[in-house]
């Protein structure tokens, strides 16, 4: 059995604001029968003040989907549209005292329904999935949503992406795509430091800085060290000293750690060359 909080069980057992609103000012609908959960959110909005006067929902889903929808409606009533849009799915989960990691996608569904309802209110066209952009064909999750969740929650593994978006949770056919997106997104974190056309001087400076600020402290923590000898294009010449100097396996690991770090931070083509 899931370890649901009292608040989740309360909102599940006695959901607030269930139903429809006649002549709503905004309606947002996300999910489907095939996906196993869906949420339809109705908003009544005062056009003068932009305040959400009433919110109601209908949902198809598990206890956390129902509780998330109930929580969402309680949270947004009385807020202005702008204030409501600032809420994140984490806020919904927090409101409920937390959700099991595997159920975080339920709170994401709440946030998405809100976005869709507000877009509908503003008369914006809700973007349809473009078939080409759909990554997970089981749950119809597009690349944009995956990238958004990776950035917002600093996700690093496929499993985490599945918990937040459901992508990859069905046949698993899209797992390689999710890995690629993850690699691109996590690689991106270093991108701003990298100007498109890096001069040799910039590259040398960046490599030196990364080794000093990141790589060396990491190695020193375990009793090892690194000394930068030379840089020739993408070849970085270093002296490596592991904690266990005579151990070939440890040395190889060390080599890989240094190379991976520099590839991630500076240039994917970098090769570490060890000098004696």
């Amino acid at each position, binding site marked *: 059995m899931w370890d649901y909080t009292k608040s989740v069980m309360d909102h599940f057992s006695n959901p607030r604001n269930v139903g429809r609103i006649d002549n709503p000012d905004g309606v947002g609908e996300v999910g489907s*029968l095939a996906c196993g959960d869906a949420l339809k959110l109705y908003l009544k909005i005062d056009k003068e003040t932009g305040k959400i006067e009433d919110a109601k929902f*209908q*949902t198809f889903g598990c206890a956390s*989907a129902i509780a998330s929808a109930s929580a969402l409606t309680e949270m947004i009533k009385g807020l202005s549209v702008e204030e409501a849009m600032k809420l994140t799915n984490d806020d919904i989960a927090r409101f409920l005292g937390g959700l099991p990691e595997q159920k975080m996608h339920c709170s994401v569904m709440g946030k998405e329904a809100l976005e869709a309802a507000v877009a509908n209110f503003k008369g914006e066209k809700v973007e349809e999935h473009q078939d080409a952009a759909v990554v997970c064909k089981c749950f119809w999750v597009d690349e944009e949503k995956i990238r958004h969740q990776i950035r917002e929650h600093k996700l690093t593994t496929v499993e985490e992406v*599945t918990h937040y978006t459901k992508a990859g949770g069905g046949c698993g056919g899209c797992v390689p795509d999710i890995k690629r997106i993850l690699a691109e997104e996590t690689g991106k974190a270093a991108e701003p430091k990298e100007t498109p056309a890096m001069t040799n001087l910039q590259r040398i400076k960046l490599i030196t800085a990364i080794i000093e600020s990141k790589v060396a402290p990491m190695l020193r923590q375990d009793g090892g060290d690194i000394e930068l000898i030379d840089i020739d294009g993408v070849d970085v010449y270093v002296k490596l000293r592991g904690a266990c100097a005579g151990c070939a396996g440890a040395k190889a690991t060390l080599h890989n750690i240094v190379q991976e770090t520099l590839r991630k931070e500076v240039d994917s083509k970098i090769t570490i060359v060890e000098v004696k």
Partner: protein
Amino acid sequence: MSDIRQVYLDNNATCMVSPGVRDVMLPFFGELYGNPSSMHNFGGQVAVHVKAAREQVAALLNASPDEIVFTSCGTESDNHAIRGVLEATPEKKHIVTTKVEHPAVLNVYRFLEKKKGYRLTILPVSRQGDLNLDELRAALTPDTAILSVMAANNETGTLFPIDEIGAIAREKGVIFHTDAVQAVGKIPIDLKKIPADLLSLSGHKLHTPKGIGALFIRKGTRISPFMIGGHQENGRRAGTENVPYVVALGKACEEAMNDIFEENNRVRKLRDKLEEGLHSTIRHTYINGNPRWRLPNTSNIGFEFIEGEAILLHLSAAGIAASSGSACTSGSLEPSHVLMAMETPFSYAHGSVRFSLSKFTTEDEIDYALRVIPPVIQKLREMSPFYDPTK
């Protein structure tokens, strides 16, 4: 709710220990602590009970006592059967099973395919969960080492014709293993008539505590031991016998043999009352599995437009225990592999609930369930964006 009570309708998951079974175990936690292999009276007086238990298990299956090996659970029996046969038949590299097997079988086959290089054929099932026997026959080749087909499906209760399947396997010279964990004790199984070479069973589906199972190995079947060590179980399963639980399994099989008529009739009537009651009062409900060719205790019902975990939690709050093939209950995101193999429509796959009865289920309990379940379904449907009350 003032008359709140506990109604256990999840007997395919596990069931209560029968009072008779509990009673026969107790002396083995006291004075009867000897090792049945010992050459003194402490051992000897215990060995008699182990021997009797083996005869009781054999009697239920119409097998010979020396064809029964005690194991720790149904999963061990399945692993022993499949991997033991493959080890004894190293020249054959093809294995066959079905899409709807229990993970204790299916995941072993998948492991063998991925890690051990076996060629694996997984047979599909129809919308009702039935196998196509022509397809099964065609799948068996001279290179096929073993075929595993369950006797009864744990989720839907659908029965496979293991007598016919065994005959086909025999004709093709393929060893036939059947996982009968859900079937044993619920329907008569006569191994003189069913040509199975190996049959797995589990105690806790038969009213013993968890932690005991058995594997039937037909005389002459080539199979390697799964546990290597001492000479217990004729050298086929080393390890000092779990005597209290072995005795429990013997007693449970004896009770099952006496009760099987009741299982087949009284329980079937209660199951039908529950199913018909729900089906007639709640619209948009569907029976999953083959409604005629089915275990007498199992009913798997799909409630359209709502989700299983939500149903189960509401039922649990009202004291009713059931289970669901819905994705959300397991932490996976897709409905159960059994419902998916049957191509169950998504509109009710996610809202499918399994009710499984036992010989301890009473009519009062079914009446209570019939009162409690419809309003729960209605409450959730009223919340669902897909439910149209006018239809």
